[in-house]
């Protein structure tokens, strides 16, 4: 795979605060890369440096081998979808979309052709003469995306583009965006704090924390092979065990619960259920182990929420191969 963007020892300070620690990161052509992390982890700063709105304090940024570290945003062959869309309120949907093409001096017939194409793609044709204030949040979102992709950038940068929308709409737009990305073949660099969103859409996820990369990997790798305690805890729910001074994680769905008296193997541990929480398709059981000062979270997928009682003594067991050693 071809390297499209390369960050070489990029770091950023705001005053005395180190927002991004020296960082190396490659974005490959055609991939959907997500920068995921809690608020204040530096993900937006990183995106803004790639876009050119912030200058790295040190280090270089390359786009297809060309050093673009000091290029202003309007000279970079990439476009951004902003968190609150930042549509131009005094322009219609059409005018918003055409803005980039006009700025770059694309000829009239080409402008028209691309406009129609992108209106079609984002299903905005019937709203073309409206102004942003006359559109719903989801439609404004589409305009923001149309306004960016019409320029056929090498990279599309997205800064929590679905953050302002309600849950249902976000779900459907996630899938739409992912399909759009496949269809256009444009590289997406996507910033979010929503891990579910990251899991749904990404080819690769970069987990950021306090300005450092904790792990880079596919959603599966991140979920099943977290590299350290931060990632193990940050993504989904997890149990962290300590054995011989080392930390391990085991996912709640990998642990089996047995009623007292059910046949068990010798590795099973006994514990008491402290809490039972109904969660739709599964039941969450919090279990305190008897011999160790350890509380486990277990998902049980039996469809009877009344099966388990608070205070009940149970046995738990799991395969050692499902344990993940953490650094």
């Amino acid at each position, binding site marked *: 795979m071809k390297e499209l963007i390369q960050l070489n020892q990029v770091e950023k300070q705001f005053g005395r605060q180190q927002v991004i620690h020296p960082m190396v990161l490659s974005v490959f052509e055609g991939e959907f890369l997500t920068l995921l992390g809690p608020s204040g982890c530096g993900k937006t700063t990183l995106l803004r440096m790639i876009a050119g709105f912030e200058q790295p304090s040190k280090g270089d940024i390359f786009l297809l081998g060309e050093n673009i570290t000091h290029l202003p*945003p*309007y000279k970079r062959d990439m476009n*951004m979808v902003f968190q609150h869309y930042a549509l131009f309120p*005094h322009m219609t949907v059409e005018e918003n979309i055409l803005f*980039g093409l006009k*700025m770059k001096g694309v000829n009239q017939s080409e402008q028209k052709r691309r406009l129609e194409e992108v209106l079609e793609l984002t299903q905005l044709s019937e709203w073309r003469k409206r102004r942003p204030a006359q559109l719903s949040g989801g439609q404004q979102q589409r305009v923001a995306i149309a306004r960016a992709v019409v320029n056929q950038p090498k990279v599309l940068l997205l800064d929590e583009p679905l953050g302002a929308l309600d849950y249902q709409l976000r779900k459907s737009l996630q899938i739409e965006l992912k399909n759009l990305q496949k269809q256009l073949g444009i590289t997406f660099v996507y910033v979010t704090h929503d891990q579910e969103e990251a899991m749904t859409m990404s080819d690769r996820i970069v987990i950021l924390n306090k300005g450092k990369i904790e792990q880079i990997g596919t959603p599966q790798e991140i979920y099943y092979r977290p590299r350290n305690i931060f990632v193990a805890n940050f993504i989904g729910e997890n149990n962290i065990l300590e054995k011989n001074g080392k930390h391990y994680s085991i996912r709640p769905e990998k642990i089996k619960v047995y009623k007292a008296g059910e046949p068990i193997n010798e590795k099973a541990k006994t514990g008491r259920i402290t809490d039972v929480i109904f969660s739709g398709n599964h039941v969450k059981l919090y279990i305190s182990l008897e011999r160790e000062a350890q509380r486990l979270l277990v998902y049980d997928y039996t469809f009877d929420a009344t099966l388990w009682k608070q205070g009940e003594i149970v046995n738990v067991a799991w395969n050692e191969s499902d344990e993940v050693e953490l650094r």
Partner: protein
Amino acid sequence: MNQRGKWLAAPAFIWLLCFFLAPLFFIVFYSFFERGVYGEIVYRFTLSNYIRMADSIYVKILLDTLAISVITTVVTLLIAYPLAYYISGLPKRKQRIWLLLIMVPFWINFLIRSFAWIIILRSKGIVNSLLLEWGWIEKPLALLYNDGAVLLGMVYALLPFMVLPLYVSLEKLDRRKLEAAYDLGATPWKAFLYVTLPLMKHGIMNGSMLVFVSSLGMFVVPDILGGAKSVLLGNLIQNQFLSARDWPFGSSVSIILMVFSFILIVLYQKAVAAGQHWEGERQ
């Protein structure tokens, strides 16, 4: 409006009726009568006061007034914009200090401030003394009692009326929209032209309106800094009422000035209404 609102508005209404509408009515009334030999009003209907305005002397005064008002508006805009831009980019605390500094001159009587300009500009004034001292000029420049001095005084007097509305609209301006423009390939100049300016239309028009209408009626500045040479509409009116004692003519000139201002305000409101439909933008 509910009943209670009406009562609350009553004092203001009575005030306006007695001290604004009644005098205005008299002005309109007088403008259609003749002046007597001793400056008294002769109650005989005539249009001569209005016809007299067509005299080339008065037409010239009207055109001069319009010209200097337009120039004043443009110059204040050009000075006020960068200033307002600078202030709006400062931290909140510093913004307050700057805004206070801009308002401070209002605490001193305008007449006194205008006289202060005489001290600065006169032939033995501060500017000329310094320039002579440094040897940049041989003899004092004529800085006072000309159109330049009038323009300077007007811009000085009206600058705050431009800075404040511009500041307010810059404050409201969402800078992310500018970033979006840069991102889409707009150079800073193009982003200013196609995004900042249209979004600031309101502030610019508000400020321009305030400055333009105020300069149309200005008479203190041309009186003090313009000397006898510079007569604008405001001076003409003042002279008719105070020196020439020709109240009917003074009234008709006032009416003409008012009609001019009124037409401009209507045009302004039309223009604003045309740009209104994107106002309620959702965030």
